[in-house]
């Protein structure tokens, strides 16, 4: 099924012969195959444009196409692009004397020196992206990375890595040539966020929910940390926002760098309605009455 010649030339159905000629010339200039030796697609495009023009430039053929008597195939024009096939072969020397021989020798020598195939050449560095679970970035781990060629790299993740950091695995990139060394694998890390813990440098932050009883009376509570569950003793009268620092329980140490801390911020949770608690509070007379909003007015 041939294309609609109006669409090929990009003109309206009612276009004047002048408009058709203009559109045809414009497209022919852009796609003439002899002017586009490096673009094979230009030839097909030029043929389609010529065939469309063949139909639309002939009032008789155009009318028959409009009535649907012929399709858009039209008659094949003399094939353009014959010159470029000749000109690139040895025969082209007949017309190719314009640039003195040697005009491009410096350029060519430069190009081929850069990719001289003799002598050892190092392989390319290859870049990869590795998603790292939050816990692995905090404690360090070994993650596996499957390469496009099926190889599996075991990547040592040191504790404390951050998103965007790049690890270099020597000799794991592209193969070298002629005995040259292999390139490196450059592995960019993407550390997943954690729903509860937040990284702040090498410290971790965590909002610890506590009950009203735990906040008022204090006592031991169990706290999940990346390095396992810890028992933490809360002091009595721990208000919301109170911060507890667990030294060395943040991001694990690495080499000379000491481990970070885990900072807990307490958050009192009252929980569902409790009749006994309500009854108690109704009758309760505070030992030291206080207004937690005292001083807020002054700042208005």
């Amino acid at each position, binding site marked *: 099924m041939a294309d609609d010649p109006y669409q090929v030339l990009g003109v309206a159905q009612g276009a004047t012969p002048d408009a058709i000629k203009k559109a045809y010339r414009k497209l022919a200039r852009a796609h003439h195959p002899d002017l586009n030796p490096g673009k094979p697609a230009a030839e097909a495009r030029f043929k389609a444009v010529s065939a469309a023009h063949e139909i639309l430039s002939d009032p008789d053929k155009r009318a028959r196409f409009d009535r649907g008597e012929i399709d858009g195939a039209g008659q094949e024009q003399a094939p353009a692009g014959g*010159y*470029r096939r000749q000109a*690139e072969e040895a*025969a082209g020397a007949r017309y*190719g004397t*314009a640039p003195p021989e040697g005009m491009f020798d410096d350029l060519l020598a430069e190009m081929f020196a850069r990719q001289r195939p003799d002598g050892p050449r190092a392989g390319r560095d290859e870049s990869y992206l590795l998603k790292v679970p939050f816990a692995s970035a905090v404690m360090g781990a070994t993650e596996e990375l499957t390469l496009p060629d099926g190889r599996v790299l075991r990547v040592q993740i040191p504790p404390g890595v951050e998103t965007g950091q790049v690890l270099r695995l020597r000799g794991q990139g592209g193969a070298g040539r002629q005995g040259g060394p292999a390139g490196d694998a450059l592995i960019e890390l993407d550390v997943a966020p954690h729903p509860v813990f937040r990284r702040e440098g090498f410290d971790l932050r965590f909002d610890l929910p506590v009950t009203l009883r735990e906040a008022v009376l204090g006592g031991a509570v169990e706290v999940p940390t990346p390095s396992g569950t810890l028992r933490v003793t809360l002091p009595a009268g721990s208000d919301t926002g109170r911060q507890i620092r667990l030294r060395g329980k943040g991001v694990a140490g690495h080499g000379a760098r000491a481990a970070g801390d885990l900072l807990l911020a307490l958050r009192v949770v009252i929980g569902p309605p409790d009749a006994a608690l309500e009854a108690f509070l109704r009758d309760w007379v505070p030992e030291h009455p206080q207004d937690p909003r005292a001083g807020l007015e002054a700042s208005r």
Partner: protein
Amino acid sequence: MMTIEMLCLRFAALTPEDLLHWIEEGHVRPDDQAGMLVFREIDVERVRLILELRDILEVNEAALPVVLSLLDQLYALRRRLREAGIAVDETA
């Protein structure tokens, strides 16, 4: 191989006067065989190209030598690159 008469029969838009003028200007370079002009396949295609440049692309008389010269340089470069590519393949 073609004579000038065959060539003018081949292209309806071509007159012997145009062709002789192009030969004079060096745009078309047929062989001279015992006083008779003989056109090879590349010359025939070159005549077609010049006709298309003139009649379809509206390249005028004055611009024609410029366009042909640039095309000649382009094809000479492509030929050189291709030769150089072949040479590299052979040494690899």
